[in-house]
């Protein structure tokens, strides 16, 4: 498989423009009354994703990296439409999805599928594999009911499972096989974009390689586009064409994979790369990033990273840095780039 060049000019397959997701603990009538009287707490708002723009071009693999709780999954769910947007727009090949007719929206919903992290919880334990994989295409009329088992067999074959196993239940499979079932389920509705949320994180090292290979093979065979969410830099580096780094709800850096790993720009990216252990035998000599990620309930002002940043300046405390192109196709949001 050769590296492919993704034409930059092309309209992105999916574009998220300035999207935000806020989780608010729903206030009921009594809370509102209490609040009116000055009792009660102010509503708790989590800015899980804060004004993020992301373009995914057809055929591209975008890697999304960040620490736990930084909003990766939320962004992924927003991309496929499992979460509504608190603000911003979602465009499919340049068209605003929310403005589309309902039928088109439904069709698009199938065009974007998600692969989940937990190979145990993501399969309904009470359904057989053929039902898990075949239910949706039949329900949506993509496949006639009579042809369901053939269709399922074909899909299972494609993800490397014996079609004879179709009558089994999820618990009768190993983790790697379950991951494949999850992939087959997503492929069953003929998606164009797959969002893989930590899709290999739960797998054993030796199995992880098999599934990663499967992803790459499917990409070639089916002309798929991926948003590949992971915290494992090694995996992302291997599979992604472009890498996006998130920190506390915001994108801090985005660049083609080679560029990013070779010339990380944002201090957080630099720290992250340094923290990641590698197979090279050398003693850990320093603490790459001090402190912990703050709570998204009370994010720091200005640059979210400033409390942990070794280069923090007074300005970082007050002003939010915007993404800037620091090299071709390489964007970073850091005030250091201004000086």
């Amino acid at each position, binding site marked *: *498989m*050769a*590296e492919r060049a993704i034409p930059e000019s092309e309209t992105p397959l999916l574009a998220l423009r300035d999207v935000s997701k806020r989780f608010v603990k729903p206030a009921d009538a009594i809370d509102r009354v209490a609040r009116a009287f000055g009792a009660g707490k102010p509503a708790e708002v989590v800015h899980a994703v804060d004004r993020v723009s992301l373009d995914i071009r057809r055929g591209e693999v975008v890697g999304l990296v960040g*620490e*736990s709780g930084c909003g990766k999954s939320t962004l992924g769910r927003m991309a496929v439409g499992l979460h509504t947007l608190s603000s911003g727009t979602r465009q499919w090949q340049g068209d605003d999805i929310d403005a589309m007719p309902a039928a088109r929206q439904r069709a698009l919903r199938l065009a974007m599928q998600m692969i989940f992290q937990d190979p145990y919880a993501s399969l309904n334990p009470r359904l057989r594999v053929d039902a898990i994989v075949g239910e949706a295409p039949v329900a949506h009329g993509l496949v006639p009911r009579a042809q369901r088992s053939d269709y399922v067999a074909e899909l299972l074959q494609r993800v490397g499972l014996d079609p004879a196993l179709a009558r089994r239940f999820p618990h009768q499979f*190993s*983790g*790697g*096989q379950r991951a494949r079932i999850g992939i087959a389920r997503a492929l069953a509705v003929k998606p164009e974009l797959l969002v893989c949320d930590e899709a290999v994180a739960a797998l*054993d*090292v*030796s*199995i*992880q*390689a*098999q599934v*990663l*290979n499967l992803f*790459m*093979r499917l990409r070639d065979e089916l002309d798929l586009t991926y948003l590949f969410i992971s*915290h494992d*830099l*090694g*995996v992302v*580096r*291997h*599979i992604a064409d472009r890498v996006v780094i998130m920190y506390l709800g915001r994108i801090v850096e985005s660049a083609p*994979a*080679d560029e990013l790993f070779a010339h990380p720009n944002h201090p957080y990216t630099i*720290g*992250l790369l*340094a*923290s*990641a*252990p*590698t*197979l*090279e*035998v*050398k*003693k*850990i*000599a*320093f*603490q*790459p*990033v*001090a402190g*912990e*990620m703050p709570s998204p309930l009370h994010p720091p002002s200005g640059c979210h990273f400033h409390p942990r940043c070794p280069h923090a300046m007074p300005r970082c405390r007050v002003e939010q840095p915007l993404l800037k192109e620091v090299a071709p196709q390489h964007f970073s949001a850091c005030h250091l780039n201004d000086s």
Partner: protein
Amino acid sequence: MTIHSAQPVLDVRHLSTHIGTRAGTVKAVDDVSFSVRPGEIMGLVGESGSGKSMTAYSLMRLLDALAKVVAGSVLLNGRDLLQASEEAMRQLRGNDIAMIFQDPMMTLNPVLRIDTQMIEAVRAHEDVSVAVARAMARETLARVGIASPDERLLAYPHQFSGGMRQRVAIAIALLNKPDLIVCDEPTTALDVTIQGQILYEMQTLCRESGTALIWITHDLSVVAGLADTVAVMYAGRIVESGSVQDVLRSPRHPYTHGLIASSPSNNRRGEALKQIPGATPSLLNLPSGCAFRTRCERATEICASDPPFEAIDGRTLRCFHPIVDAGGAHG
């Protein structure tokens, strides 16, 4: 860095632990031998279900009712733990040999305050006043990098982040200055940046105090950065062990080799990863002989009989067809 001269703190010989389940006997740990010297960090690596935790529990004698050590000896400073009385063992635990677990959410008792959990750990072994024990607790918390320990002592576990909790657990393990700490995947659940911090701190602490560490993980790259020696487990057995340099740079067991080769960082970007075929077998129905043979390219008929556990060139190996000169795994 490695201190080859000293007597081992821990010497495990031919340890076997079996679990009696409804479906049959699981040989969770099968003829495992290794030793750790003072101040040494040993990485115990293996995939899920390979018996790493069972090995650790066997050393600590913390096995569930269903699991039993069926053979072998565990010598801590020359004393066989498996022969010690239950009370003697209790006194050794936490005092001479401590343990940290994987999930920092679960290891601290959620309904007890941190100070309670630390003070009781001191007072279980030393007849000191609460005040003294609290002072020790505060000091140790500070050592593991927790700010304002006085305040933090009064908190409950849920008020800490995952990383902080793991630090508390480490502090508890360090409280009585044990000779050996067994760490069962303590950073697996943590973020990379936090993992980096903890790895760094553990390394420093061990170096300062001369405490030996057994670091259990499934992540070879963690071992690469941290450990002095490494033992690789597969299906209840140690298939290869030796110094980190030797094993990682030129693995000789096909499984170790496969693992290292399948790591993305050892592959060209975008190309198919080298992969070990098949899945990890269930311990209930292992193939006879070498458990890896069904996934192994080099397997021959002889592999159906048990391979011997041999020491070659300062490392040990359990394979009929070791890779003689891999020339490094970087293909």
